[in-house]
């Protein structure tokens, strides 16, 4: 495996990308979970799928667009979807969670239409759905690295505002911080992380990397910073361990990553129970 990483560029790409998303997905996920927005990541990943399908359709239909990286369109759709969710949450003030199934089914509907126009499934799309070790190109790695830097910088600079907004929204509003702008920037970050993570872990599983490591550390973390630290640790163990297993056993990486995250979650629940016996 190690020699494989040294030898093959595609494995280097996959591992480096994995290490980036293993950190940024749980980092964003901590705020997503404590703000009770876990379902948003699912909705946005389905919208990102529509973007990928649209991009693949364009590649097929127009020869001049054959080199277009589907990642860009996935990001554009995902960010667009996040804006729609915010709009819908404003429209349905008393039923804010309605925005999520609306966007989710809208995204899925669009994806199915694009796939059928493109005349069916191809292997590329399969890789996006379930994740793939071999699909990550050097360009993908650079794009994802850029996303990672933007996300980490933004969340560091807005950390105290996001903490306040997560802990006590009413107090955040009363304190006079620009909470709408901060919330909006945050949602865009979520959308970017989802688009960046889907190549490795797959669209259908991407939300798990945002929620499972966080759910595990929620069992025993003392304080918010510790929770972020543990979430990232669990995220990294899941991704690196998952990629390792998937390469050696020839399994889809998304599945192995998620199953390791589930195992960590079970262990932390048991640990918490044992500690509070």
């Amino acid at each position: 495996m190690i020699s494989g990483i040294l030898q093959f560029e595609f494995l280097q790409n996959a591992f480096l990308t994995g290490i980036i998303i293993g950190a940024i997905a749980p980092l964003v996920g901590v705020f997503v979970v404590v703000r009770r927005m876990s379902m948003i990541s699912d909705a946005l990943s389905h919208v990102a799928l529509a973007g990928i399908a649209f991009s693949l359709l364009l590649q097929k239909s127009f020869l001049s667009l054959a080199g277009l990286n589907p990642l860009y369109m996935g990001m554009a759709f995902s960010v667009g979807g996040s804006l729609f969710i915010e709009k819908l949450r404003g429209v349905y003030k008393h039923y804010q969670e309605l925005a999520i199934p609306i966007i989710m089914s809208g995204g899925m509907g669009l994806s199915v239409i694009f796939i059928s126009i493109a005349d069916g499934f191809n292997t590329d799309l399969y890789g996006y759905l379930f994740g793939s070790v071999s699909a990550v190109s050097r360009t993908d790695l650079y794009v994802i690295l850029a996303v990672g830097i933007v996300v980490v910088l933004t969340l560091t600079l807005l950390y105290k505002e996001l903490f306040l907004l997560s802990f006590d929204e009413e107090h955040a509003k009363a304190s006079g911080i620009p909470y709408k702008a901060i919330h909006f920037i945050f949602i865009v970050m979520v959308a970017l992380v989802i688009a960046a993570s889907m190549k490795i872990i797959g669209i259908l599983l991407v939300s798990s990397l945002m929620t499972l490591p966080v759910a595990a550390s929620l069992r025993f973390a003392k304080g918010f910073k510790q929770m972020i630290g543990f979430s990232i640790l669990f995220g990294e163990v899941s991704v690196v361990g998952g990629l390792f297993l998937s390469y050696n056993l020839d399994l889809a990486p998304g599945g192995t990553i998620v199953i390791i995250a589930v195992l960590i979650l079970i262990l932390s629940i048991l640990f918490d129970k044992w500690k509070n016996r």
Partner: protein
Amino acid sequence: MNPIVKMEDISYKYTKDLVLEHVSLEIPKGAFLAIVGPNGSGKSTLLKLLLGLFKLQKGKIEIFGEDIRRFKAWQKVGFVSQKANSFNSGFPATVFEVVQSGLTKKIGLFKFASKDDKKRVKKALESVDMLGYQNRNIGELSGGQQQRVFIARSLVSEPELMILDEPTVGVDSKNVHQFYEMLEMLNKKLGITLILVTHDVGTVTDKVTHVACLNKKLHFHGDAGEYNELDEGELSSIYGHGVQFLNHDH
């Protein structure tokens, strides 16, 4: 001397019926005012207007001598809500982190807490007697202890005015008295002007300096001594009938 808060002829409605009618109220610097009134009397609406969370429909509010619509110095105003409404008790934050979040506005966007800020957090925890709990998760504390932490979160930005919305909801009765003593200390020693919304009429009147009785209209506004002189008939005409007035003897 100019009052810290000056409300003039405030009326407010959500749909058709007015919840506040022609309320005018001046709050002098250094006061400890209790706004009391039954459920649905418009107390919370008045607070939300005062915090700038609701837009004024009719009337005028001046806060620190400035029209509330143009007021920006919100760090001068501390707010303690009914904790049960606004906070999720499983939240993984330490007491220290919670109190430090009270400095968010004061530190400013894109900046980080300095050593002085951390000292302020400790000082605020000390003044509510909770320094020993700084590394505990907020969810592990009792209702009364949590409320002290929330007071510290407001104190940390060194506010001149502190607004408390039913802060004793969820605090067990034997700690309520201590809680009010702490508020009295903040008012007298630190000179913070306090506005307290409560239905706890009996307990507060021996701690506060002023009382305002609200039931859509402002029925009484005066110092605590005058309020205590009111007889039961007058109180009933303020609150409507069927409200009991217990005079706690502490």
